[in-house]
C-alpha cells in the first residue's frame, strides 16, 4: 500500500474528499490513476475532448449528455475533485444501515442517482422534462427504423402515462414514481467495487 499512500499525498484535500464522497483510499487512488490517464496533456484538468477520446463512450447514445454532466456549472474544464464528486453518485449504496434522518441525503443514495439521471434528461434545468427534451432523448436512443411521427407519438404516450398534474411535462416527483426496480443497484458493482 506504499504506492497508495504516495499517490494520496499528491492529491490536495484528499481527506475532505473522502469524507464527502465516502470513497475509500484505494478507490480514490484508482480514480486518480484513471483521471491522469485521461488527462493526456497533464494539465490537471479534463476537457470535453478528453472524455470524447473514450471510444466506448462515443458509442453510447447519451454519451454526450453524460460528458455534459461533468461540466454542468458552465466551466469547460473539470478538476479531480469535481470528477470524483460526480462519480460518487454511483458508489454502491449501503441500504441496510438505518439512516439518521437529520443528516443530509448521502450522495450515493437511490434518490441522488435518480436526480442525477433526471438532470441528464432535463437539459434546460427547469425541473421538468418537457416534451421536446423527451423527444431528443428518444431520438438519440432509438435506432434507424423509427420515423419522426412514431417518435412523437411515443413521446406523447410517455408523458401522458407519467404526467399526473397534467402540465405536459414530467417533473422529478413523477419521475421517481416510475418503478425502475433493480436497474440502479445491479450494475453499480461493476463501477466502484473492487
Amino acid at each position, binding site marked *: 500500500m506504499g504506492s497508495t499512500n504516495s499517490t494520496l499525498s499528491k492529491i490536495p484535500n484528499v481527506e475532505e474528499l473522502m469524507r464527502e464522497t465516502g470513497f475509500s483510499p484505494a478507490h480514490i487512488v484508482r480514480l486518480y490513476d484513471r483521471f491522469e490517464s485521461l488527462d493526456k496533456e497533464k494539465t490537471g484538468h479534463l476537457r470535453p475532448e478528453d472524455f470524447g477520446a473514450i471510444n466506448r463512450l462515443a458509442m453510447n447514445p447519451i454519451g454526450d449528455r453524460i460528458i455534459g454532466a461533468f461540466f454542468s456549472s458552465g466551466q469547460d474544464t473539470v478538476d479531480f475533485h469535481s470528477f470524483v464528486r460526480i462519480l460518487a453518485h454511483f458508489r454502491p449504496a449501503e441500504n441496510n444501515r438505518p439512516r439518521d434522518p437529520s443528516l443530509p441525503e448521502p450522495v450515493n443514495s437511490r434518490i441522488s442517482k435518480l436526480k442525477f439521471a433526471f438532470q*441528464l434528461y432535463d437539459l434546460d434545468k427547469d425541473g421538468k422534462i418537457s416534451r421536446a427534451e423527451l423527444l*431528443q432523448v428518444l431520438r438519440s436512443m432509438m435506432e434507424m*427504423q423509427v420515423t419522426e411521427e412514431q417518435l412523437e407519438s411515443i413521446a406523447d404516450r410517455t408523458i401522458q402515462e*407519467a404526467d399526473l398534474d397534467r402540465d405536459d411535462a414530467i417533473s422529478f416527483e413523477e419521475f421517481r414514481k416510475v418503478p425502475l426496480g433493480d436497474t440502479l443497484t445491479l450494475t453499480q458493482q*461493476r463501477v466502484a467495487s473492487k
Partner: protein
Amino acid sequence: MERLLRRGFMERGFLLLVVLMFLEGTVFPLGAASSPDISAPDGAGGHERNDDHRGIDNYTFPKKAFPVLSLDYGHIQMPFEISLWVLLASLMKLGFHLIPRLSGIVPESCLLIVVGLLVGGLIKLAGEEVPPVLDSKLFFLCLLPPIILDAGYFLPIRPFMENIGTILMFAVIGTLWNAFFVGGLLFAVCQIEGTHLSQVELLPCLLFGSIISAVDPVAVLAVFEEIHINELLHILVFGESLLNDAVTVVLYHLFEEYSGAGEVTLMDAFLGVICFLIVSLGGVAVGAIYGILAAFTSRFTSHTRVIEPLFVFVYSYMAYLSAEMFHLSGIMALIACGAVTRPYVEANISHKSHTTIKYFLKMWSSVSETLIFIFLGVATVAGPHAWNWTFVSVTVILCLVSRVIGVVGLTFIINKFRIVKLTTKDQFIVAYGGLRGAIAFSLGYLLDKDHFPMRTMFLTAIITEIFFTVFVQGMTIKPLVDLLAVKKKQEAKRSINEEIHTQFLDHLLTGIEDICGHYGHHHWKDKLNRFNKKYIKKCLIAGERYKEPQLIAFYHKMEFKQAIELVESGGGVKMPAAMPLQVSMQNIQPKKQPPMAADRALPQFTKNREEEIRKILRSNLQKTRQRLRSYNRHTLVADPYEDGWSEYMLKKQRMIELEKKMTQMSNYLTVPAAPSDSPTMRRARLASDPNAFYTIKAPPGNVPTIQVELASPQSPDSVNLVDEFSKKGGSSQKNTDDRKEEQGRMMKPPSNKNPGLLRCLSDPGPSNEDEEDEPFLP
C-alpha cells in the same frame, strides 16, 4: 397442415432408413479391416489375404479372358474406410437434427457415443475384430488439432485476456488439486482390505489421477454449445480446458517416468515445476513464432490468393507438430499460433480467403468432434475391460467431489481480486461443466502394458468417468441451468415509461463505467497496443493497409447486409431527398392490429396504437453491450469486441442521424442559394469553435450563426454528400456544416444531437483525403 406434417415425417423416416442401411452396409468392410491406423502396415496384410479370395490371378493363368470388370478392394481400402467413417459421422450429424425432440433433450455428444456403441456392437456381432480406432497416434495427430485450431483462431481475445488470471488459477492449481486429491484418495482406498486392489501402488494412482483430472476441451465445447450460457462462463471453462494441457503433460510424463523407479524425490518434483514452465511457455513461444511466420508470409500473397488459407493451416499444424516433437504442450502452441496469426493475416488476405479459412476450420473441427465421439463408443465396445466396482465407483465420486471443492475453494480466493465476482450459480456451472473426454482416454491408452499391469482397469474407469460426465452431467446441466436461472420480469406489462427510463439508466451506467475504465489492465494494455501499431503491424501487414483497412471492407459488408435487410423487410424508408414522409406511413400499416376496445381512459391512444408503440420500443431501443449474451462457437458472426466494430457503430450512428436530417430537409422548400464558401473555410470555422457542440445549456446567443450560406438539398454539395455517404465511410466535416446550417434555418432549439461528428476531430481515424485514396480490399 396435417398433410404437410405427415409428408415431412415420411421424408425423415425415409432418410433415417437410408442412413441405417448405409450403416449396415459399411460395417462389413470396416470389420474386415484390421486397423485404420495410418502407420500400421497391417492393412497390407489384410489386403493380401483378401486378394487370394478375390481371384485376381492373372499371373497364374495367363490365358484367361481379359477381366472387363473386377473388384479390387484392397487397393483403395485405407482411404475408403477413412472416407466411410467421415461420411458416417456427417450423416449422423445430419440425422440428429431431423429428429426434433431428441436433439432438444439429449446433447449431440451423447447420441454420437451411442451411435459409436452401435457400430462397434455391429462390428463385433459380425464376428470381425473391432479396429482400434481411438489409437493415440490417430487421435493426437489427426483428430485433435482441427478442433483446437478452430478454438484458437476464433478465441475471443479480449474476454480471454481479461480473465486470464482466473483461467490460469483454475487450469493450473485446479488441475493439480484434482490430480493429487483423486490419486491420493484412490491409493488410500486401494489399501483398504477387501478390495483386492492392494497391488496398485501410489505412483500409478497418481498417474491415473492426473489423467482423469483434466477437463476436456472437446467435451466442454460440445456440451456448452447447447446450453447457451454467457460468454464469461464459457471462456472460463473453455480456457481452463485448453490451458490445463500443459499441467497434464508434465504430470503424465513425470509419473510415467518414475513409476518404474517407484518413488519421486523432491528433486524430481522441483524438476517437474521447471518442466511445467518450459512446457507451457515453450509451447506458447513455438506457436507464436509460427504465427508470426504465417503472418509474414501472408504479406506477400497478393498475387496468389488461392493458396492463402493453406498457409494458415499448414503453419498452425506445423506449430503443433513441432511442439509435440519436443514434448511441449501442442495444444497451447496451436492456440497461440491461431490467436497470433489472426489479426495480421486477416488484414492481408482477401475477403474470400477469409471466408474460406473460417468455413474450413468450422467444417474440420465439426467432423473431428463427431468422429471423436463415435470412436469413443466404438472403443468402449472394443474393450478390453476389467471392471472393478470399487475402483470405478470411487473414481467417479472422487472426481465430482474434488471438482466441486476445487472450484469453490479457488473461487473464494479469486473473488477477492475480481471486479465482476463469480456468483454461486456461476460456480456451480463451472464445477458441473468440468467434463472429461477423449483426451483422457487416449492418454490412458498410451500407457505401456508392461509397466502398468492395471492398465485395463484404468481404461475401464476412465471410460466410465467419461460416460458419466458426458451423459449424466451433459444431459442434466441444461435443466439445472434453467432451474437456477433468475426469472425475468414479464416484459409485456412494463409501462412505456419504465422501458424508456430503464434503458436510459442502463446507458447512463454503462457510460459511467466506461469513464471509470477497467483498472489494472489499462497501462500495459495500452503500451502493448501502441507497440503493436507502431512496429509489428508495419512488418507484418502488406503495404499501407495497416492503417485501418479492414474497417472499410467491413463497413461495406455491413452496408450490403443492411441494404439487403431493408429490401427484404420491404420498408425502405430512408431514401434521402427524393422520398418524403409518405413512405414512412406505409411502415405503420402492417403493424396495425385489428381494432380492439380501449380499456383505459386515455382519449387519444387506442390499444392497438399502444401495442404498436410497445413493439417499436422493444425492437428499437439500442441495447447496451449485453454481458449476458450467449456465446456460440458455430455462428460466424463478427466479433463485436474488435475495435473495428465500435468504429463502425460510431459511423453508423452518424449516418443514421444524417439521414434523419436529410429526410427532414426534404420537406422544406429549398431556396437555391449561391454556393457558399469552399469546404476548407467551413472546416476551418468549425475547427476553431469546437466548444459550440458541448454547451448543454446552449443559450440562444450560441446558436451557430452561419445561416447565410444555405446549401439546399439539391445543391451539388449536399448531393455529393449523399453519394459519398453511400460509397465511402462517411465524410465527417461536410455533414457537420450542413447540419449546422439546417438547424439555423429550422429555428429549432439548438440540440447537440450529434456531437459525435465532432468527436472525429479528436478521434485519430483516417481523414477524408486518405479515405479517398484507400484501396478497397478485393
